[in-house]
């Protein structure tokens, strides 16, 4: 019997069966379940959460250096954090197989942008794999690690939300053993002094022809039987499913499925030669569409997101791909009238609620108060009834933006950041603020977990006062409170005092996340 697996779980099981010795990751929707599955199902794989995507990428590179296979997982914006290590891992090359999994989020279901990670793969000049289904996501993992070891390069695997968070039956293969410890001895590969780096980069450039050849011959790229047709389709990754849902054989539309890059140019040209126009179906940004336009020249009709045949932004669906193929579906019912949006909200009883309640009370007393927010559940403080925050940009930006605004003269400049986000990317900003003696008030709203992604362990739990003192915050201005309605008077008084302090102060409201607390209580009750 096939096993029902989420796309993320299929990736995780594929990696376990490909003999990984470690997974390194920071939680981020839609990638989180990969690491969670490995934590729950593979005791012989190192799997504790990392502090951020950069530390994850570097530790995985270290495991690869030592000869073992490692997987790194992150959401697309995590690639920005990991980018320094990621791009340079293509220059050092690898020893044990190294696969970097980036889960993109077209339509921004849980993200602040819809950047396409395939740009990063192209930028770093490494192979990219983009499975179209859960079965392929499982099957492609051992292939990805073998490809990585064959080419001595990291491999980027790119998925999107709809694959990561969709379940399907998956046929399971025989697991492989882990690699033996075998540290690399080629210092000239790993010490990227300019002299070595130039040689390594030349070697990477030289590998490009072989990477293209492998993509042309890949079992994961395939051109359907073709005859002369007005329109052909290049379908990348999950877009292949949306094309197939519209039955291209019935429409007389030949299809080139692309799941391995660099783009198989010979196959694209072969398809183009038989068609008058090509439609490029790819989820995310028009990465392939731009390449094919350059490849076929301006006289050839290339349609896609850039021409408006497919929407410029947002995820593909069987409907918008169908429309681009000329398939019109009959709609029996219109959109209902008596329906309103139901946005998410902070849970009842959540400590963040009391934090925002207190901040709003105090901020009201200052005409120019600005509250800089950050990434997590507490971003929901932007919505009614709180409407408390003025910004939310990227992990850690609350502290540094508050600092910059304070430098410019904003007062009070308040930062609100969660515990996990603080250790991810807030600590370095705090050091900047301390060194400049910036007049900012930082609220580390500590719920003892990484709540937004479902309650994973938070790297700094029980360490926050020590971290702040260690970075040089005056002990008199590191204040801990318990965010409960009954403590409102005390909390607002402390916020007022710290706003008036002419330097860096940190307030830590600390109360466990209501979701993780309830889960623990349920578990305890079940055991009794």
């Amino acid at each position, binding site marked *: *019997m*096939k*096993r*029902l697996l*989420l796309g993320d779980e299929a990736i995780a099981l594929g990696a376990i069966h490909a003999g990984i010795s470690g997974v390194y990751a920071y939680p981020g*929707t*839609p990638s*989180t*379940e990969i690491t969670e599955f490995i934590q729950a199902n593979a005791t012989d794989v190192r799997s504790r959460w990392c502090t951020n995507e950069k530390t994850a990428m570097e530790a995985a590179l270290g495991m690869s250096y030592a000869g073992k296979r490692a997987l790194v997982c992150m959401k697309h914006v995590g690639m920005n954090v990991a980018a320094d290590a990621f791009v340079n891992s293509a220059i050092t090359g690898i020893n044990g197989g190294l696969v970097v999994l980036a889960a993109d989020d077209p339509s921004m*279901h*849980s993200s602040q942008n819809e950047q396409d990670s395939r740009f990063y793969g192209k930028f770093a000049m490494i192979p990219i794999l983009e499975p179209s289904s859960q079965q392929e996501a499982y099957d492609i993992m051992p292939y990805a690690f073998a490809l990585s070891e064959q080419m001595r390069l990291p491999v980027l695997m790119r998925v999107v939300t*709809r*694959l990561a*968070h*969709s*379940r*399907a*039956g998956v046929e399971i293969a025989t697991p492989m053993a882990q690699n033996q410890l075998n540290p690399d001895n080629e210092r000239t590969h790993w010490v990227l002094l300019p002299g070595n780096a130039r040689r390594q980069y030349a070697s990477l450039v030289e590998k490009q022809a072989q990477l293209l050849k492998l993509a042309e011959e890949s079992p994961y790229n395939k051109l359907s039987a073709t005859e002369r047709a007005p329109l052909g389709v290049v379908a990348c990754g*999950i877009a292949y*499913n*949306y094309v*197939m*849902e519209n039955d291209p054989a019935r429409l007389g539309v030949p299809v080139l499925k692309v799941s391995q890059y660099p783009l198989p140019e010979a196959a694209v040209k072969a398809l183009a030669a038989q068609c008058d126009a090509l439609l490029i179906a790819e989820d995310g940004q028009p990465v392939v569409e731009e390449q094919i336009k350059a490849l076929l020249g301006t006289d050839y009709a290339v349609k896609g997101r850039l021409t408006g045949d497919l929407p410029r932004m947002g995820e593909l*669906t*069987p*409907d918008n791909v*169908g429309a681009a193929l000329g398939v019109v*579906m*009959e*709609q*029996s*019912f*219109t*959109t*209902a*009238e*008596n*329906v*309103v*949006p*139901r*946005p*998410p*909200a*902070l*849970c009842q009883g959540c400590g963040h609620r009391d934090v925002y309640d207190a901040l709003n009370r105090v901020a009201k007393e200052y005409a120019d108060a600005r509250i800089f927010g950050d990434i997590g*559940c507490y971003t*929901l403080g932007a919505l*009614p009834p709180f409407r408390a925050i003025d910004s939310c940009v990227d992990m850690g930006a609350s502290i540094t933006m508050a600092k910059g605004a304070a430098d410019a003269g904003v007062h009070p400049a308040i930062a609100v950041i969660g515990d996990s986000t603080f250790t991810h990317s807030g600590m370095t900003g705090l050091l900047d603020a301390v060194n400049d003696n910036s007049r900012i008030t930082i609220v580390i709203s500590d719920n003892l977990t990484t709540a*937004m*992604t*479902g309650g994973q362990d938070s790297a700094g739990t029980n360490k926050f006062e020590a971290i702040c003192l260690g970075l040089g915050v005056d002990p008199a201005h590191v204040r801990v409170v318990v965010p409960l309605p009954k403590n409102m008077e005390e909390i607002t008084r402390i916020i007022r005092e710290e706003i008036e302090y002419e330097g860096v102060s940190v307030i830590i409201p600390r109360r466990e996340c209501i979701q993780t607390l309830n889960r623990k209580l349920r578990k305890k009750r*079940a055991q009794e």
Partner: protein
Amino acid sequence: MKKDIILAGVGGQGILTIATIIGDAAAVAGLSLKQAEVHGMSQRGGDVQSNLRLSTEEIHSDLIRQGTADLIISMEPMEALRYQDALAKDGWVVTSSHPYKNIPNYPDEKAMMAELCSLPHTAILPIEDVARDAGLPKCANVVLLGMAARYIEILSAEQLRESIGRVFASKGEKVVEMNCRAFDLGLNAVKE
């Protein structure tokens, strides 16, 4: 044969449990299945939905095409209405009648229910009341599954009941028995 189902509700109402039970039954029956879920931010009390596709043939898309859903199963009446444009002409809507009001601008209840009832094929029941009156307050979602069972067609009620046994097995016999009872309550409530 295929069955495209939209499961709808508010974060925390337990629609993924319904999906798990149907999914398990489909896997045992050897059907093809794809089930797109919503994780992350929207689970915090926002609207959630899952596209559940069952077929005797290969399924390509994880998402259901507009105007082709055979069945909407919803834990909340407005959430059922949210997806009516996805419904096929002969599609069924099986929903709880109990509004979940965690937003200030919830639409006029009478107008909303009237619009819901104007759809040609609906089965509507106050599942929370039914579950509570039977002493099964935590099993309202399985009452709903029982109501939907006769419209799922591609799987029999018996196959779904067996799946409940497997899905809840780890929680003990009592929980299995309670959920089976909830399932039968729903099943019998919509008997012609």
